[in-house]
């Protein structure tokens, strides 16, 4: 009897594993962030190419890396962030893109081409990009905001929110001091962290996922916020302003990339190309509310989207941005300092 039970369990597991092979249609397996696409656009793609799209989600780049390193689970298209693209290239986990299948690549704006984390776009194409800036509530913040220094203003004590991200926060302090946001110089990093320690008493919270709610509900008055999130906050709370500080800031992107062992590489490339059609692009970015890197899609966007200054940053603002690059072995130093900042201990 007990062996029958075991047999049944084994059969169920086998059934689960083989259950996916039922459909005869070709399947594109996407592994990305939650809510990263307009689902209607995905349905359009399924219809037009007579294929099926399977969409799995991860919560952070490290989960993605672990899965891809462990063999990829049959994913055809993944969306790593900038620094993760660099790490995956270094570990030989990505397949080079065949640009013959992606002629619409030319629609991408020049600022998003040839990024430092993937020179020549050999392995990746920018999908969703933004810049870290300062969002502030004009009801409480009366001074003009144009510098990272403004976060240190004692008038906002206890009302400052910082991104819950090691590289963003230390990178911000490095930028404030006029250095690269990816400095590997121990002296520069130490000085930046000491500067941040003087900001700690002003900090209400560190937050990335729920920073939008905290700003909409006016718990925080001033915060480091991603441009797309700032646009989202401003829609719910019209008192919100947003600036890219004069010292410059960090630009980030989630990208299209294809794992080395993908089973449907060509279909993945067709999907990227489809997403870069001006009309599809407009529909998609309109829905997810982030900056559209497509130069030809503006006519298809709503007037409201085109007028949004937090989504459509100026060339001058973009010229002050810098990508984060991999810091190699200094990751230990950054992590130690981050632990000090997050625990308030030395």
């Amino acid at each position: 009897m007990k062996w029958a039970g075991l047999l049944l369990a084994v059969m169920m597991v086998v059934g689960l594993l083989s259950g996916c092979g039922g459909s005869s249609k070709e399947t594109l397996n996407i592994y990305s962030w939650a809510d990263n696409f307009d689902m209607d656009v995905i349905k359009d793609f399924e219809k037009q190419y007579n294929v099926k799209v399977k969409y799995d989600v991860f919560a952070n780049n490290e989960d993605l890396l672990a899965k891809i390193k462990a063999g990829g689970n049959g994913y055809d298209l993944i969306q790593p962030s900038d620094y993760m693209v660099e790490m995956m290239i270094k570990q030989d986990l990505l397949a080079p893109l065949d640009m013959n299948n992606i002629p619409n690549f030319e629609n991408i704006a020049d600022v998003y081409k040839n990024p430092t984390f993937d020179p020549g776009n050999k392995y990746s194409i920018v999908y969703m990009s933004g810049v870290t800036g300062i969002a502030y509530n004009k009801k409480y913040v009366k001074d003009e905001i144009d510098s990272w220094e403004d976060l240190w203003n004692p008038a906002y004590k206890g009302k400052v929110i910082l991104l819950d991200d090691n590289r963003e926060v230390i990178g911000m302090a490095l930028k404030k001091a006029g250095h690269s946001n990816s400095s590997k110089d121990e002296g520069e990093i130490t000085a930046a962290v000491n500067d941040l320690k003087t900001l700690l008493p002003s900090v209400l919270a560190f937050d990335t996922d729920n920073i939008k709610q905290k700003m909409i509900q006016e718990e925080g008055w001033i915060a480091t916020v991603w441009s797309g999130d700032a646009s989202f906050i401003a829609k719910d709370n019209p008192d919100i302003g947003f600036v890219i500080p004069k010292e410059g800031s960090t630009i980030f992107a989630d990208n299209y990339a294809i794992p080395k062992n993908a089973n449907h590489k060509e279909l993945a490339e067709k999907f990227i190309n489809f997403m870069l059609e001006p009309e599809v692009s407009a529909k998609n970015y309109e829905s997810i509310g982030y900056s559209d890197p497509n130069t030809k899609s503006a006519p298809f966007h709503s007037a409201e989207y085109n007028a949004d200054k937090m989504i459509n940053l100026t060339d001058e603002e973009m010229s002050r941005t810098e990508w984060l690059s991999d810091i190699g072995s200094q990751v230990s130093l950054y992590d130690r300092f981050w632990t000090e900042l997050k625990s308030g201990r030395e």
Partner: protein
Amino acid sequence: MRKSNLSLLPVFLWLFLFLLLPMLMVVGISFMDRDELGNVVYHFNLDSYATFFDPLYLGIYWDTIVLSVLTTAICLLLSYPLAYYIANASPRMQTWGLVMITIPFWINFLIRTYAWVLLLRTQGVVNSLLINWGLIQEPLQMLYTKGAVLLGMVYTFVPFMVLPIYVALEQMDKKLLEAASDLGATPWRSFWHITLPQTKSGIMTGAVLVYVSTTGMFVVTDILGGAKSAMISNIIQSQFLGARNWPFGSALSVIFVITSLIMIALFNRAMTSRHLKVKEGR
């Protein structure tokens, strides 16, 4: 006899595959090295354990233990009277009491924690009420403080304390209390000498559940504490993700398990010696 041993085989297999093996891997990795990209490198060393004795990490661990002990103590103080009340109520009320304790479990833990955010934030329910009643002028900053973390922990883990104590009270031999009262013991005296010693297995179980769960909790500190009072479990999590340092994360986990076992053993001993004293006193 042989037959029952054989039928236990799947259980042992299960425990080996999904408990022992992963734990052995964690212990193994804690003695390894890693490269710049975060890959574990098979080179035996004790660096990860040495790093733990840095005052920074020792301090964070101390904070974690203090918070966990405090949470356990408050849970015990709140839960014992509650469990006592439920256990001594009418059968109908007992059922109701237990249902009330268990109902929150039907709702996702994250949602319950976010509910506290809605209550405590500056424009939240509590502040709005206090301002409307004219008790305060400016909203109080209750959220994103250590107090909010403690509140969240106690709220989350009180049921883990109530249920085992309730079971112990329920199974207690009530005749002893009648005998004590017949012999002239005051209610307080019979509680102290009969009820408390008889329910200490429940207290023990509850305390261990609450203590271990609190030390391992990192969501409450993030949501209610504003992610600015890192606990040891926050550090472990970050070592496995952003910091790309699995060996250090593993070493912290191993130390974590060992210190938890020591705390449980100490607590167990404290409880047993109390029991001995009671026996001698009889």
